[in-house]
C-alpha cells in the first residue's frame, strides 16, 4: 500500500514540473489518431518486477531523442510512460513522420541526407539548447557510437543516455576492443592481436576486418582491397586479421551497467540468420546454449563491462562454434536493434533502465533477480526484395500491423511508420521490427507465422516472403542454424514460396471462395426495380490459373454455396478431398481469415491476403508470397484457347518522361547498376519537379538526355520512330524525334 501511494505521489511530481514548451508544433491539426497500446511486457513479469523494483524515482523532465524512425518512437513510448517530455528531431523528409507526431516537441535539424541532419552535431546541440532538454537518447546508428558527440554533450552539461566517452572510444575500435577483451579474461579468436602490415606470417583461412568498424571480409588475398575499402569507408586503413571460425552461430549478451559499478548480464540473443552480415531474424534465448555456457558467456561479458568502466546498455557479441566454444567478436556500445526480444523474455524495459542509469540511479535488481521465461523472436521487416536484398522505396498505400490476439501482448511491432508514410532513399529501409512471444519456441514460431501472414504492406516490395519461408522451414524449427543459413538454403536467392500439393489446394480453395464472394456481391443490387437478385448464382464451375505462363495448368474447381449467409462454401477440386471453406472476409478488404475443413477432418485456419483485383481475377498473398490468380468461368475457359498470347512490350527497360518539360538533372551514367526505385532523372514542367525512377533492378545502357534538354511526354514516343526499343535510356530524347512538338510551358 505504501509503495503504491509513493508511486502515485512520484507521478504527480513529474507532471507538476512540466517545462514550458517552446517549439510546440503548429501541425497539431494534422495529428493522426494513432492508438498504440503498450504491449511490451509479458504481464506476469511486469508485476514481478514492479514488486522488486520498488517505487520509481524521478529522472528527467525532458529528453531529446537524437534519432528517427522506429527507435525514436520506441524511446518516446518509454519516456511517455515515465512522464518525461520528449523532443524529436527531424529532417525535411521526416517532417510528418510518426516520431515527430508522437513527441511533445519537434525540431527541424536539416535537409534529408542524414549527414546534414541526424548527424549534424551543431544543429542537434542547438535543438537541445532551444528546447531545454536535459538528456539525449541516441537510439542506435547515427550518433549513438560517436564519442565526439558524447564529449560535446558533456561539455554542455547534458546527460547522454548511453556509455561514457572513453569506454565508447575504447570499444569502438575493433583492435583495441580485442586487446581489452583479452585483458579482462574474455575468450578471443586466436589470431593476430594488433595492427597487421602483411599477410605472410599467418595461415589461412583468415578474416580481414577494418579496425574502425564494419563487418568482416572473408577473403584470401584481399589484404590490399580490404585496406583500401577501409580507408575509403572509415578514413583508417589499419586492418585486423583473425582466424576464421567455420560455420559459426552469432550469439550476443546484453549487459546493463550503472554508474556505481553494478553490472547485470541478460540471457543471450541468437542472431545467426543473417544476410550479408546483417541480422534478419533473432531469437532469445538460443536453442544452442546450455546453462553453463550461458553463465560463462554472461560472466565474461560482465567482466569486460566492468573492466572498461562501462555504463548503460551494451551488447557483447560472440561467435559460437559447433563445439560451443565462444569467441569475443565485438562490443556494441548502444541499445541494439534486437533488444525487444530480451525485454520480452525478461520483462525489463531496457530503455527505462538506460534513462535511470543516466539519471544516476542504481540498478534496481541484482544478477540473481534476472530470470527469463518463454521464447521470443524478432523478424526485421525490410522494404527490400527477398532475392537480391535490394531496397525498395515508395509510399505505403496500405499498411496494417498485426495485433496481439490475447492479453498476453504476444505480438509487438516496433515501427516508425503509418499508412501513407514514405520509405525514402535517405535512410535505412527498415519497416518494422516484428517480435512475438510464446511460452515455448514452437508457440512463438506459430504466433510469428500468423503475424507475418496478417501483416499488410502495400506500396513497397518487402521481405515478408523470405521471413515467412525461413520461419516455417523445418531446419529453422529444429534450431540447426548458423550464420550461413540463408546462403545455404537459398543459394541463388529466395524466389518465392513454391506451391506443393497441400499449399496449392489451400490457395485454390481460397481463390474459389474469393471469386464466389465477389460474384455474389456483383448481384447484390439495392433498390433496383427490374433486377432479379434472386437469380444470383449459387454454384460455380471455375478454372483457376495461378501465375499465368508458369508450370501449373488451369485447375477446374466446382464451388457451391452452403449457407444462406454466404459465409460457407463447398469446394471440389479433382484429386483432392471435398473441402468446406468458411471465412470472414469483408469484401475487397486485405485480410481473409479462412477456416478450411477438409473431408470432415479437423478444421484448419488460414490467413491469406487479398492484394489487388486484376482484370480477370485478383492477386493473393499466400504464405508470404504474392500469386496472380486468374479465374475463368467454364465458358471463358473454353474460349480462352483462342486467345493469342502477346509478347509483352517491356516498358520497364526504358524510362520515359511522363510529361513534356525540361530535364533538371540526370542521376545515373552509363554502366551504373541501379535498384528498383532509384532516382534516374528529374524532369521539370510547369515549375513542378518529377523524379523519374527505375522500375526494376537494371544496368544503365544508354542515357539520351542531359540537364537542360527539353523532353516530350511519353505518348509522343509512339509511332514509326522506334523509341520503344531504346535500351534502358534514361529518358528518350525529344530531339531524335522530329515529329514531336513539345508544348511550351511558360507560366
Amino acid at each position, binding site marked *: 500500500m505504501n509503495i503504491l501511494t509513493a508511486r502515485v505521489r512520484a507521478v504527480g511530481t513529474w507532471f507538476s514540473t512540466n517545462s514550458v514548451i517552446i517549439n510546440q508544433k503548429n501541425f497539431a491539426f494534422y495529428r*493522426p489518431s494513432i492508438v498504440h497500446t503498450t504491449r511490451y511486457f509479458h504481464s506476469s513479469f511486469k508485476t514481478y518486477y514492479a514488486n522488486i523494483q520498488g517505487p520509481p524515482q524521478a529522472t528527467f523532465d525532458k529528453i531529446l531523442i537524437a534519432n528517427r524512425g522506429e527507435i525514436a518512437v520506441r524511446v518516446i513510448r518509454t519516456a511517455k510512460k515515465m512522464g518525461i517530455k520528449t523532443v524529436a528531431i527531424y529532417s525535411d523528409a521526416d517532417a510528418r513522420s510518426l516520431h515527430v507526431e508522437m513527441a511533445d516537441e519537434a525540431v527541424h535539424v536539416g535537409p534529408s541526407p542524414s549527414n546534414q541532419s541526424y548527424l549534424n552535431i551543431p544543429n542537434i546541440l542547438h535543438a537541445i539548447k532551444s528546447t531545454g532538454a536535459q538528456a539525449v537518447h541516441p537510439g542506435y546508428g547515427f550518433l549513438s557510437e560517436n564519442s565526439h558527440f558524447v564529449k560535446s554533450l558533456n561539455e554542455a552539461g547534458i546527460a547522454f543516455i548511453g556509455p561514457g566517452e572513453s569506454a565508447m572510444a575504447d570499444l569502438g575500435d575493433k583492435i583495441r576492443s580485442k586487446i581489452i577483451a583479452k585483458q579482462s579474461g574474455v575468450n578471443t579468436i586466436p589470431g593476430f592481436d594488433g595492427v597487421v602490415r602483411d599477410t605472410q606470417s599467418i595461415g589461412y583461412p583468415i578474416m580481414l576486418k577494418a579496425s574502425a568498424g564494419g563487418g568482416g571480409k572473408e577473403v584470401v588475398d584481399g589484404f590490399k582491397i580490404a585496406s583500401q575499402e577501409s580507408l575509403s569507408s572509415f578514413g583508417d586503413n589499419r586492418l585486423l586479421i583473425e582466424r576464421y571460425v567455420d560455420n559459426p552461430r552469432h550469439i550476443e549478451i546484453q549487459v546493463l551497467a550503472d554508474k556505481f559499478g553494478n553490472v547485470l548480464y541478460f540471457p543471450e540473443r541468437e542472431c545467426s540468420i543473417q544476410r550479408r552480415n546483417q541480422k534478419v531474424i533473432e531469437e532469445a534465448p538460443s536453442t544452442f546454449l546450455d546453462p553453463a555456457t550461458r553463465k560463462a558467456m554472461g560472466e565474461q561479458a560482465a567482466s569486460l563491462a566492468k573492466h572498461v568502466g562501462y555504463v548503460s546498455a551494451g551488447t557483447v557479441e560472440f561467435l559460437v562454434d559447433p563445439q560451443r566454444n565462444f569467441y569475443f567478436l565485438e562490443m556494441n556500445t548502444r541499445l541494439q536493434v534486437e533488444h525487444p526480444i530480451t525485454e520480452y523474455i525478461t520483462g525489463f524495459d531496457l530503455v527505462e533502465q538506460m534513462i535511470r542509469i543516466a539519471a544516476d540511479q542504481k540498478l534496481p535488481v541484482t544478477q540473481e533477480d534476472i530470470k527469463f521465461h518463454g521464447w521470443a523472436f524478432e523478424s526485421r521487416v525490410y522494404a527490400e526484395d527477398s532475392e537480391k536484398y535490394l531496397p525498395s522505396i515508395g509510399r505505403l498505400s496500405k499498411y496494417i500491423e498485426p495485433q496481439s490476439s490475447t492479453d498476453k501482448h504476444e505480438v509487438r511491432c516496433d515501427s516508425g511508420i503509418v499508412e*501513407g508514410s514514405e520509405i525514402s532513399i535517405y535512410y535505412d529501409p527498415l519497416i518494422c521490427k516484428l517480435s512475438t512471444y510464446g511460452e515455448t519456441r514452437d508457440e512463438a514460431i506459430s504466433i510469428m507465422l500468423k503475424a507475418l501472414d496478417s501483416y499488410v504492406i502495400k506500396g513497397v516490395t518487402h521481405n515478408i516472403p523470405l521471413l515467412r519461408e525461413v520461419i516455417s522451414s523445418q531446419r529453422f524449427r529444429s534450431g540447426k542454424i548458423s550464420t550461413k543459413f540463408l546462403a545455404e538454403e537459398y543459394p541463388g536467392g529466395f524466389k518465392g514460396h513454391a506451391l506443393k500439393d497441400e499449399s496449392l489446394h489451400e490457395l485454390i480453395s481460397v481463390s474459389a471462395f474469393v471469386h464466389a464472394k465477389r460474384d455474389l456481391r456483383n448481384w447484390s443490387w439495392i433498390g433496383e426495380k427490374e433486377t432479379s437478385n434472386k437469380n444470383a448464382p449459387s454454384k460455380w464451375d471455375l478454372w483457376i490459373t495461378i501465375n499465368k505462363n508458369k508450370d501449373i495448368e488451369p485447375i477446374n474447381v466446382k464451388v457451391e454455396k452452403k449457407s444462406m449467409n454466404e459465409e460457407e462454401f463447398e469446394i471440389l477440386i479433382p484429386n483432392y478431398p471435398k473441402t468446406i471453406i468458411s471465412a470472414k472476409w*469483408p*469484401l475487397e478488404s486485405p485480410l481473409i481469415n479462412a477456416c478450411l475443413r477438409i473431408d470432415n477432418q479437423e478444421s484448419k485456419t488460414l490467413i491469406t491476403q487479398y492484394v489487388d483485383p486484376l482484370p480477370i481475377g485478383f492477386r493473393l498473398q499466400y504464405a508470404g508470397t504474392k500469386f496472380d490468380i486468374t479465374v475463368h468461368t467454364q465458358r471463358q475457359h473454353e*474460349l480462352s484457347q*483462342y486467345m493469342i498470347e502477346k509478347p509483352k512490350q517491356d516498358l520497364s527497360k526504358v524510362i520515359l518522361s511522363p510529361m513534356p518539360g525540361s530535364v533538371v538533372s540526370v542521376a545515373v551514367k552509363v554502366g551504373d547498376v541501379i535498384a528498383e526505385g532509384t532516382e534516374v532523372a528529374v524532369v521539370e*514542367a510547369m*515549375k513542378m519537379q518529377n523524379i523519374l525512377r527505375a522500375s526494376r533492378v537494371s544496368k544503365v545502357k544508354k542515357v539520351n538526355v542531359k540537364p537542360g534538354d527539353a523532353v516530350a511526354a511519353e505518348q509522343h514516343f509512339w509511332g514509326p520512330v522506334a523509341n520503344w526499343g531504346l535500351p534502358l535510356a534514361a529518358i528518350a530524347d525529344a530531339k531524335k524525334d522530329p515529329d514531336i512538338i513539345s508544348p*511550351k510551358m*511558360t507560366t
Partner: protein
Amino acid sequence: MYRETFARNYKCIFSTFTRVSHIYPCAKSFGRISALTPIRIREYASGNTKEEEVMARMESMRAKAHLGGGMNRIITQHKKGKLTARERIDLLLDPGSFHEYDTFVEHQCTDFGMEKNKIIGDGVVTGHGTINGRRIFVFSQDFTAFGGSLSKMHAQKICKIMDKAVLVGAPVVGLNDSGGARIQEGVDSLAGYADIFQKNVLSSGVVPQISLIMGPCAGKIHCLLKFSKLTTAYPGYDEIKLHFVGGAVYSPALTDFTFMVRDTSYLFVTGPDVVKAVTNEDVTQEELGGAKAHTVKSGVAHNAFENDIEALQRIRDFMDFLPLSNRDQAPIRHTDDPITREDSSLNHIIPIDSTKAYDVRDVIMRLVDDTNFFEIMPDYAKNIVIGFARMGGQTVSIVGNQPLVSSGVLDINSSVKGSRFVRFCDAFNIPIITLVDVPGFLPGTAQEHNGIIRHGAKLLYAYAEATVPKITIILRKAYGGAYDVMSSKHLRGDINYAWPTGEIAVMGAKGAVEIIFRHVEDRTQAEKEYIDKVCNYFFANPIPAAQRGFLDDVILPSTSRKKIIEDLAVLKRKSLPLIYKKHDNMPL
C-alpha cells in the same frame, strides 16, 4: 387414338429438341412451350405434322444461323485471336440469359449475284439478356458472315433492338466487328447506316450506349477491297475508292463510350490504302486506327483491353456502374466498405512543398468504396482523371485534376475529355465529385490557335449546365478561370469543400506580385513583404473563399469520404427545374 397420337407428337418434338440440342441449347424453351400446348395433328408423308415440319425446318435454320459464315470462317476468326459473335455474347451476358431476335433474317439484295449468296442472320446477332441480373440490349456483328458488312436488313436488326431498348429503358451494347457497308447493296446500305446514326442520336441521353470495337470498324473502302476478291464482278472500284469515305465508325462515335481490343480492332474513316492513294502516306492499320492510336492520341476510344475475354469481362464490370436509363437513379450495390471510414493518411497525401506532384488517383482510391475506380480514358489527356466509382454503394463519377501530369493544367484535350464525361453523368443522374488541383489553363500559341477558348468553354458549359448533385473538394490549387470552371460554387456547385491545403486565387502568389509591383523599381523588398504578409494570408489558404461563402466548409482530409457520402444522401432528392428550350447551344 387421340391420346396415342398426342404422345407420339410430343415424342417427336422432344426428339427434335434432342436432335439439335448439341448445336443449339436454347431449343429448350421451345420444347417447354410446345409441351404445354396441344397441337392439332395433321400428318404429312414424312409422318410428321405440319407444325413439326415447320419447327424442324426452323431448327435446322437456327443451327445454320449459329454457324454464321461457316466453319472455315469461324476457324479463321479464331486464328486471329477473335471470338465469334455468339461466343462474345456468351461471355458478355449472364449464362443462359440471352434472348435472340431476328435469327432468321436474310438480306434481300438481288444485285451482283447476291441472291445466291445468303447467310441466315445476315451478319449480326441481336437480342437482349442480363449482366449480373440487369437487362441489357445487345448486337454483335459477325465477321464470318459477309465480313460483318452492313446491309439494309443488318441495319434493321440493329435498329429494332435500339428501339426496344429505348422503349423499356435499358442500355445498348454494340460489339462491332464489321468491314463496313455492304457495297453490293449500294444506297440501301448507306440508308441503313443513316438509320442507325439517327437512332444513336435519338437514344443519346435516354439509354447508355456502349460500343466495343472487336475487329475492324471502317469506312466502306476497306470492305470493298475484301469483297472485290470475294464476289467476282465489280470492275472499276479504283475510281470509287476515292469517293467513298466515312461510314461505320460514326456509329461508335455517337455512342457514349467506345472501347477497343488491342491488336485486333481498328477504327478509321478510310483505311491505309485510301490514305496512300490520297495523301501518299504510308501507314499501317495499327498506326492509323489501332487501339493505341485512339486511346492515346485521338481520344476516340475510352479504353482498350488485352483480348476479347478480358474486354467482355471488363464491360460487364463497367455496365455495373451505369443506370439502365435516364429514368433510373445511379445504381446502388452492396459494399462492405464502411461509410464512416476515415483515412488519416489522406491528411498527409498533399506534399508540403506545393510545387511537388502527387497522384490524384491515390486520393480517389482512398475516398471511394473498395479502392475500386474504373478510369475512363486513362491514356489520353492524362492531366485530368475521370472515371466511375462507388461511394456508400452508389455509383458516382469522379473528375480530378492530375498534378502528376503537367501540374494538372487544363488544356484543349483535357477540357474536351472532362466535358463529355460530365455531360454523360448529368444525363444519367450520376452525381459528380470534382477534386480540384489546377494551376490554370495552359498558355501558348499551340493552345490558343487551336481554340483553347472554345474547348475550355465546353467544360465550363458542361459543369454549369449539369443538374445532378455536384460535390467539389479543392485539394490544393484552384487558380484563375480554372477555379471557376471546376464545379465551383458559382456554377451551382451543391457542396464545395476545401482541404486546409487549398489555395484559391487569381494566380500564384509570385505571379501576382510581379503584376502588382510591376512599376516599382526595386521590387525585392516589396515582394518579400507582400509574399510574407499578404500572400500567405490571402493566397495560400482557403479562408478568404470560406469567408465569402464560396466554400461550404474547410474539412479535414481524413473525413472527406464520410462527408461526401452524407452529402450524397442529402442531395438524393435534389430537384432543379429546367427552363424550357428546344435544346441548348453548347460550344462545339
